[in-house]
């Protein structure tokens, strides 16, 4: 190990390849047990969903007036998760931020699978899911098309666009690395990589077009990521429901999304770099930078909470005020305060450098961030519905087993996909690391003391 440290102080191109190839080596029993476990959770979720479709939504804890609750919360949560991926891979790419190179592939993979998971929830939540395709414009004898005024149709377009574009973006960046993998791999893997890499050879002409399309995709992904979560937030902001009807929702949700996303990136990458032994590529220096983003966005959403409450007070609309009063001090007020603790208080610890550079602390904090952001969406969605304009129709929502299991199942589904991808695809971008090898060396030098300490 010590020797490794010594050598890795000046990692070369080939070191990078070796690390990544080691990570892609066939998984052991532990790995497959983990994947099987995730698959089991997924299956469980599927079973409960099937039952729900068969019997009707009555099997959930839903009721008047809690027409939306856990499912839409999950939806917003997963969409939010997705955003940090695009932020790191696209926005930071445009700003030429160097530390992204090591983590962006992981983040972007997360994006794709998170959107994929998020996309399921609007379906799960439908009363008659077998007619979901009526939200899609298609020629029919009835002359009937979706109503493009409805935020839900915006959602459909935004989410599907986002899924497609981030998939394309991920795949484009993957091509050179797949070509690299092709050269060293054998058997069916070789065929797979050969097909997926489209026979890439890295000639100057290919690189020329590659950089151009990559730049433009990044340029597209940047406004897209902002639009997607704005659209999601408009599902709420466009209604008249007190607690939803607010103009700051779009920026507020985007900030929250990136916050939660970076949180999950940390949650995923910290164990992953250990298990896959790629600490030399994804160094503490990289994590430190990620943590700073988390801290920043945490401060932003803290500000958003403050603004939101201020606006409510400022309108002096008694109905609006009562809704927020209930949000803070109502029967489910404890959720709100838990959320504040997770999103506003705990991340402040990241001001301390020693915590930013301590993987264990980072991991724990990132977990809190995930919980907090899930709660935020739940408080906004279920809470506001529960305390609506019509007091006689107030009712606070309590989930039943079905929602819980399906939510857990969605994590299983996400982690399964992610784990499989991480094993079979280059989870760290070799190309970009080589391009910015100077920074990698810088990072290794930076983090050398911590490694020694560890």
């Amino acid at each position: 190990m010590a020797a490794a440290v010594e050598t890795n102080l000046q990692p070369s191109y080939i070191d990078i390849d070796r690390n990544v190839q080691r990570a892609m080596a066939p998984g052991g029993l532990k790995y497959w047990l983990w994947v099987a476990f995730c698959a089991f959770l997924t299956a469980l979720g599927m079973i409960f969903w099937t039952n729900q479709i068969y019997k009707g939504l009555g099997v959930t804890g839903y009721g008047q007036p809690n027409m939306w609750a856990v499912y839409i919360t999950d939806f917003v949560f997963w969409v939010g998760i997705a955003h940090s991926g695009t932020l790191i891979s696209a926005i930071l790419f445009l700003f030429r931020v160097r530390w992204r190179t090591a983590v962006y592939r992981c983040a972007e993979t997360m994006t794709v699978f998170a959107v994929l998971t998020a996309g399921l929830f609007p379906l799960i939540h439908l009363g008659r899911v077998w007619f979901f395709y009526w939200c899609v414009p298609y020629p029919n004898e009835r002359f009937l098309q979706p109503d493009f005024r409805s935020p839900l149709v915006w959602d459909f377009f935004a989410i599907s666009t986002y899924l497609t574009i981030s998939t394309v973006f991920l795949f484009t960046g993957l091509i050179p690395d797949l070509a690299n993998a092709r050269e060293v791999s054998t058997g069916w893997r070789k065929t797979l990589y050969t097909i997926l890499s489209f026979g890439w050879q890295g000639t100057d002409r290919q690189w020329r077009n590659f950089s151009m399309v990559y730049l433009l995709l990044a340029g597209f992904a940047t406004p897209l990521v902002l639009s997607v979560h704005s659209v999601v937030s408009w599902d709420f902001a466009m209604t008249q429901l007190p607690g939803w009807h607010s103009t700051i929702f779009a920026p507020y949700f985007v900030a929250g999304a990136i916050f939660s996303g970076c949180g999950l990136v940390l949650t995923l990458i910290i164990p992953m770099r250990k298990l896959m032994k790629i600490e030399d590529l994804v160094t503490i220096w990289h994590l430190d930078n990620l943590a700073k983003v988390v801290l920043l966005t945490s401060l932003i959403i803290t500000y958003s909470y403050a603004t939101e409450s201020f606006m409510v007070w400022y309108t002096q609309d008694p109905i609006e005020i009562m809704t927020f009063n209930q949000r803070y001090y109502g029967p489910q007020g404890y959720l709100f305060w838990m959320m504040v603790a997770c999103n506003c208080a705990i991340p402040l610890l990241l001001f301390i450098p020693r915590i930013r550079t301590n993987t264990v602390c980072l991991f724990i904090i990132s977990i809190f961030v995930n919980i907090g952001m899930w709660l935020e969406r739940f408080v906004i969605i279920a809470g506001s519905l529960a305390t609506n304009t019509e007091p006689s129709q107030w009712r606070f929502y309590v989930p039943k087993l079905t929602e819980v299991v399906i939510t857990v199942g969605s994590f299983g589904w996400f982690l399964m996909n992610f784990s499989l991808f991480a094993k079979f695809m280059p989870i760290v971008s070799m190309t970009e690391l080589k391009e910015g090898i100077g920074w990698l060396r810088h990072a290794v030098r930076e983090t050398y003391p911590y490694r020694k300490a560890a």
Partner: protein
Amino acid sequence: MSDGLSRRSFLKLAATAGAAAAIPGCEPAARKIIPYVVPDENVIPGVPTFYATTCSECPAGCGLVARVREGRVIKLEGNPADPISQGSICARGQASLQGLYNPDRLGKPHKRAEDGSLQEIAWDQATKEFNDRLAAAAEAGKDRIAFIGASQGPTLDKVTALWLQAYGSARLAFWERIGEEPARAAADACFGRRDLPLYKLDQAETIISFGADFLETWGSPVEYTRQYADFRTPRMRKGGLTLGKAAYVSARLGSTGARCDEWVAANPGTEGAVAMAVLNVVVNQGWISRDSGVAADAVKNFAAAYDPHTVSEQSGVPVDTINKLGAWFGQADGAVALPGGDDPQTYIAAYILNAVTGNVGRTMVFLDGSPAEAVTRPDQVKTVIQAIRDGQVDVVVVAGGANPVYSMPPAWGFAAALKRVPFVAWMGDAPDETAAAAHLLLPVHHALESWRDTAPRAGVYGLGQPVMQPVFPSRALHDVLIESAHLGAGASAQSIPWENASDAVNAAWQDLQGKLAPDSTGQAFWDDARRKGGVFREAKPAAVKLGSAVLAQKLQPKAASSGPLTLAAFPHIFFYDGRGANKSWLQEIPEPVSQIVWDGWAEMHPDTAAQLGIKESYESTRLYAGIDVVQIDTPNGPIETAVHITSLVKPGVIAMPIGQGHSSYGRYAAGRGANLWAYLPEGTRSLGVQARKTEKRHQLVTPMGKGDMMGRSIIEAMSIGDLVKGVVPEVEGEPHLEGVPHEMYEPFKYTGHKWGMTVDVNSCTGCSACVAACYAENNIGVEGKDNVALGRIMSWIRVERFIPRADEESHGPLLYIAPIMCQQCDHAPCEPVCPVFASSHTSEGLNAQIYNRCIGTRFCENNCPYKVRRFNWYAPEWPEPLNLQLNPDVTVRGAGVMEKCTFCIQRITTAEINARTENRNLVDGEIIPACAQACPARAITFGDLNDPNSAVLKRRADNKLRNYTMLPENNALPQVTYLRTLYREKA
């Protein structure tokens, strides 16, 4: 019959097929079309036929019109020709359909085997057994047979009597638990006549109810609700616009009290004393009317013992309240005191009060030629029971829905007595507690399947005709009796010349024709009666005078017997004496004031609860109205029931609804709450009890979230003073409303019709007839207790009840009550959020919800400020044969779709089609939604807003000051407006 393209058979299938009944393309109607051999000339398949008949749910005897489609009655409405209902009926009347189609009705005759189990037997076998037993009993001697039944109207009761005579017995009892005896006894004592007075509330300026819930169950609720609405509309009196004064003396604030100015919380049982005290005030102030012809000092002496102070101590009513009531009553230009409960003394006191103020003959009228008493007097009933107990009876026949085992006072020991009878025959529709004690069970027709006539009062002769073929292979009660007399009773059956019940009724009406319309022919008279639902004549008021004897006697109003707490039982507005409890609509519709469903409960004042160590441990926002269980120890054993803590009951009183607590009355009734008849002694509805908290938990469920309006503009009120001054009140909870309504775009042009509605909150009494009517008309699913607890009640229209905050009590009504349905907004917030146009606007201004397009995103409900949309969490189910009641013109919604009030679009389209095909214009009032049609108070007006002289616009214009729309700050432009309820400022 041709069930060709009619959707009934489909609905049958859809309703039972559960998930398969999902709206899109489920298995279509039965593929077979079987035409008539010979068509019925009066029936056009697909076009409803209307039959006039009478309601049997309570003794008020309202006239009905039954809407029949393809041979199935699908809706009941009031008979406009009938002077009592005048075209509208209560929730119980609406729900008698569910008595007809009740899934727990007895299908075939049953015989109890040795082991106590029931065995199905054939009809002829059953009747043979029945007749043999009767014959044997008749052989054994005189009076060996007892008949206990509910009155079926004069003719059939006569038949019953003759049948019993034929078998040589006179042990006959027509049993009605909420009886007329106190009223009749009091009338006898005061005026020397045993008939029931008629009240004309609309003639009064002051109404004081001494425990009479005349808007719920007392007397003739539909009629009184209508009259009360008139009474409460402000009118010119003594040269000024005034609001009638109403006070409600009772320990519990029911929906009757809620509509009054004053709730006088008197100790249970002391209502009579309070009446006497009021009388005392009236006479001492010299407000006795000259022409009442009673000696002032006689009355003075009579009332002397009841000076306000003593009564105040006894009843817990403040002295000045009593004085105020006295002033209200004495100085009123027309006043009426309404006595309630089972205590004759209360009635006597009230009658005297009415008499001395000269209101007898004005607001309280006796009519000449009142019908004979239908209900047997309690003492005679007791003799019959005594005979049974003494083993002098071999056969007891219990028939026609009387349920003595359930409803007779415990002291009478009827159940025990019945055990000693070798043979008990039960004849009814839904097997009840008495059936559980019977040896032979004979299924007889429901009232809507059989011939009968009613005589609710002088001048009103109701004719009840069968409106459809029997649902089950049952037989008409009196067909069975007549047949049995002819077969079993031998020669003595000569006294029964008729073949069957319809002959008997027909014969009776031939006589009636002789009396009422000598110049008409029997047939013409009969046909006319069948068309109109009876014959209705003006009856002459009788000249009555208060006897002096009554003033000599000393009144001892029954006070509640001793005990730290008092149990005050009140009849549940929907269950009456308990017969309503097996109808799922009535169980699911919340009781208007407590808003509790599917249960029995005990109401306690927070202080009382605190004494018992119970505090509000539940949140209304979880839809629980109560959860702690108390044990109430009565002289007749303990009651365990969950507590509902409310300020609407007097401290120290436990108020409990009557009508639940059935042990066997079908799936909907069985095992809910307690049967209070089993604890209440004869002649009172209150009881001294002890209570203690138990560790048990039982959730009382309500669809009502918060009972506090939070000052929002949902149900608004204004004082009569403001109305006179012409000031529109401020709504404190309302945010800035300048610029509302606001049009951002070019408003949509509604050429042609534009439907709108106005609801007069001042008239609404919360009786929930509209809700029941909506259930019946629109195939609304019944969800059951557990789902209601999850906020899944499906009713499209709900009666909301808000309790004013402490600071509002001085200026506002006692309770805010109003029906809330889809407001059909022009800027409907629910519409733009729907991704698939399932919710969109029609060219006639309706907010349409297209079930088959709905995919169930539920976004619309999130955006609805009024929360009037309902989502099908499960596919609704109608246990056979309830599905036969479904309205073929309305889609049966499946799981996963949103639904809501449509202004009864099926009625609108039908009317429009008729108008177009007869090429004429629609007439205003031609279209009446089910709710408006049912409303006894005429609170709901529906019409065309583009028709300048439509009733709805007129009503809005006439009440400009009171007209408002709910939650206006949403700028949704509702097409339903409300008229503010009126109240009288407290001093």
